[in-house]
């Protein structure tokens, strides 16, 4: 059974002011209803004026997604009653969107894949309801209009995606593209919302509304595909319906059928003239986008395909990597950023932006100059990240290495005062049985002795060096 998925993605455009008024969009840490004016409150007599920057941003997206921008597009009113909707309608675009017929190439389940984009249009965000007194049965709700009028773009795909994982990959690629374009900040709460249409080939289509996280999309789709497959297996029919994704429980639940029958009574917004901006498109200079940057990382830095893809899949990570790679061995830096750092950050749920790139470059340099073992470098990284998480800053990696005495112990130029050799001698002296076993030909005894030496040197020696020294000593060369 083929899975067929199409997405509708709403992204907040990262403009300084709202779509139709001059209010600041930087509302997230502020009191409710402090970023409002007559226009975004929908006060009687107020009129919308389109934010030129928002149109430019939307056009950047349209161009990056290879869309056609029609000569004229039109704003329309979507009419419905909801307490967060201050005017009783949302200004959006309906039958004449800003841009149509584009595509985005992604890494699909079966290699490179082109996902067609149906349309890109602009609209305003409604306000936000805050429910008071319990999640399940709120006693009352308050409305915050700070979010009302934030510019959104809605990107609609054709039903070209074939699995929940592919949908996730598409979203990641789209997010990266939008961030590269400088029009979107994925780290802002509520900056992305997704509706997904999912069906099994030959069955009715189900719409999942309002998924608010990247991971949520894959989870919701996985649940929904399983639910639909099970239903078919039991001989039930899939009903065409709208379902809500309950993030906390990872399930979708049926929405009241009434919501599907909603008639939005779209008609052209009489307070805004048609948007004629096709002529702007040629003047838009797109920045380097993820695909191009990936190619460059491979060519310029010698990154592997997998590292290059990981590093360029996130704008901040790519920028971070380039700063680190500027002063270190780029291939080593790629491993350390893409594999080590990313893993540690994910474990701590920290953004890459929290890590100063020069600090990390210093750590990579320590590894590169063999001043610290890989294992101890990871240990230092963990300490530094924990410090950042705790107090927002951290000591220097070199200082940390010195403080903890983690500087690598070499095999020493001179015998006698060689700390590695003396640790090895100690281990040999303390473990006569292991020595005997080894000499009797039981090679695993050597591993035990290596472990003892590593313990004594607190990991500051490279296992290969320890091995060599032990063999030398045990062979009775001394």
């Amino acid at each position, binding site marked *: 059974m083929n899975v067929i998925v199409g997405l509708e993605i709403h992204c907040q455009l990262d403009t300084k002011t709202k779509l139709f008024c001059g209010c600041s969009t930087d509302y997230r840490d502020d009191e409710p209803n402090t970023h409002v004016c007559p226009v975004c409150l929908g006060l009687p007599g107020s009129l919308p004026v389109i934010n030129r920057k928002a149109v430019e941003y939307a056009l950047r997206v349209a161009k990056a997604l290879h869309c056609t921008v029609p000569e004229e597009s039109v704003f329309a009113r979507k*009419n419905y009653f909801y307490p967060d909707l201050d005017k009783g309608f949302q200004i959006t675009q309906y039958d004449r969107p800003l841009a149509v017929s584009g595509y985005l190439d992604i890494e699909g389940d079966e290699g490179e894949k082109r996902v067609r984009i149906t349309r890109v249009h602009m609209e305003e965000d409604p306000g936000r309801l805050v429910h008071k007194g319990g999640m399940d049965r709120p006693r009352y709700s308050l409305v915050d209009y700070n979010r009302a009028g934030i510019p959104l773009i809605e990107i609609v795909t054709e039903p070209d995606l074939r699995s929940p994982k592919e949908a996730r990959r598409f979203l990641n690629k789209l997010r990266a593209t939008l961030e590269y374009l400088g029009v979107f900040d994925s780290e802002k709460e509520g900056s992305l919302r997704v509706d997904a249409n999912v069906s099994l080939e030959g069955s009715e289509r189900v719409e999942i509304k309002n998924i608010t996280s990247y991971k949520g999309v894959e989870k919701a789709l996985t649940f929904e595909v399983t639910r639909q497959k099970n239903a078919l297996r039991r001989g039930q029919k899939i009903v065409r319906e709208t379902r809500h994704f309950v993030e906390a429980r990872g399930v979708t639940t049926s929405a009241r059928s009434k919501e599907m029958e909603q008639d939005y009574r779209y008609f052209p917004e009489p307070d805004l003239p048609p948007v004629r901006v096709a002529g702007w498109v040629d003047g838009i200079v797109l920045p380097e986008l993820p695909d191009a940057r990936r190619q460059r990382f491979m060519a310029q830095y010698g990154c592997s395909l997998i590292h290059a893809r990981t590093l360029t899949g996130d704008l901040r990570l790519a920028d971070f990597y380039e700063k680190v790679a500027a002063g270190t061995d780029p291939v080593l830096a790629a491993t350390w950023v893409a594999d080590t750092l990313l893993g540690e950050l994910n474990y701590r749920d920290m953004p890459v932006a929290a890590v100063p790139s020069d600090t990390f470059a210093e750590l990579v340099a320590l590894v590169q100059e063999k001043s610290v073992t890989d294992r101890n470098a990871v240990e230092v990284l963990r300490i530094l990240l924990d410090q950042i998480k705790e107090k927002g800053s951290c000591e220097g990696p070199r200082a940390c290495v010195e403080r903890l005495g983690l500087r690598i112990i070499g095999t020493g130029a001179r015998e006698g005062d060689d700390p590695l050799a003396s640790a090895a001698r100690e281990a040999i002296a303390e473990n006569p049985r292991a020595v005997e076993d080894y000499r009797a030909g039981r090679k695993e005894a050597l591993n035990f002795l290596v472990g003892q030496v590593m313990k004594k040197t607190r990991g500051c020696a490279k296992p290969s060096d320890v091995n060599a020294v032990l063999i030398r000593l045990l062979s009775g060369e001394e």
Partner: protein
Amino acid sequence: MAGRTLSFHPDDRFHAFLRTVPDPAFGEGRLSGMPVAVKDNISTAGIETTCASRILTGYVPPFDATVVSLLKKEGAAIVGKTNMDEFGMGSTTENSAFGPTKNPRDETRVPGGSSGGSAAAVAAGLVPLALGTDTGGSIRCPAAFCGIVGLKPTYGRVSRYGLVAYANSLEQIGPMAADVPHVNLLMSVIAGYDPKDSMSLDAPYFHTPSMDVRGTRIGVPEEFFGEGVDPRVASVVWDAISLLERKGAEIVTCRMPSMAYALAAYYVTCMSEASSNLARYDGIRYGPPVDVKKPWHEAFQERRREGFGIEVRRRIMLGTFALSSGYYGKYYAKAQAARQNVRKDFQRLFTEVDVLAGPTMPTVAFRFGEKSDPLSMYLSDILTVPANLAGIPAISVPCGKVEGLPVGLQIMGRWMEDERVIDVAYAYEQGGGP
């Protein structure tokens, strides 16, 4: 320095005002110290603005409409808010939630509407200047019925910012006064580009009226003298047109076939837009508080049922129907096509003539209750709505009387030729009109 104030205690026997400002401030400028009445659907900072609707009772705008700012900038004193049909929906001012306004020329009759309060305030001599709004004749109708002058400007020439929307694509704020020079003066203050109104035109209005109409070609559409037009009104208006001819204008009769669909196109458009514009009055932000113990969707429906008058509810329902899926094509889309035809008709006519003339209203002022049937009330707008559908300027100037009641001569002009419309009206007014 403390600003100067005016004392304003009018004898408002006709209920022209919903509320007055007893000691309004005024400043320096072209309108220094002149009392101006403002229709109650135009936002005035600090002064309650209700659109004569219960649903907006207690709403005090935190901002001035652009026209009000412009009036203040020229020194005018805002002396009060005038009565109107609720949200502008009506042609008699009987649809005010706060009681009707009487026609100062005959207290048994309506002043016309929906800017009936503004017209009555001027006609009663309470103010020299008033602002009205015209969606389908709401300035020209009461001007005609009360025997004053009222101009509906070219759509976009006067900012709509602060005008509480009824039918956005049709309505304009415009000047009302006892004579053409005062209308011209008020127009020169309120017209001009406003970045807050995206449909605003960059066309300031600086004009000195000229009474010279020699060579002006005046078209008279047959349809403006058709069925439903009181022959006595038609005769008075023809006399006025003849006077203009004697002053050197050239009179050309013509036809305007699109008139057949103008009224339907108008009502479908304005009701559709109204159904959307009035959705914001859901009891959360305006009017008396709703019963918060009820679920929201019940509370807001109740609030709307109680807060809106019958005519407003009728228009919201009809507009909602006209926009609903399955009917959009039949109604809203068709209305826009008919609207295009009206525009084209005007364009064609204006290649042959400079202005069009006819009666403003088919009859003189109605008696109270005479138009209780909504359809017959709608029909009375037939001569004024074409100008709104096309966005062109149109003026009503008093041109005589029938049984002691004023009759208005309507002059419509080319898009952006408000000045010429003013001139022809001025020529008539100065030419020995009644």
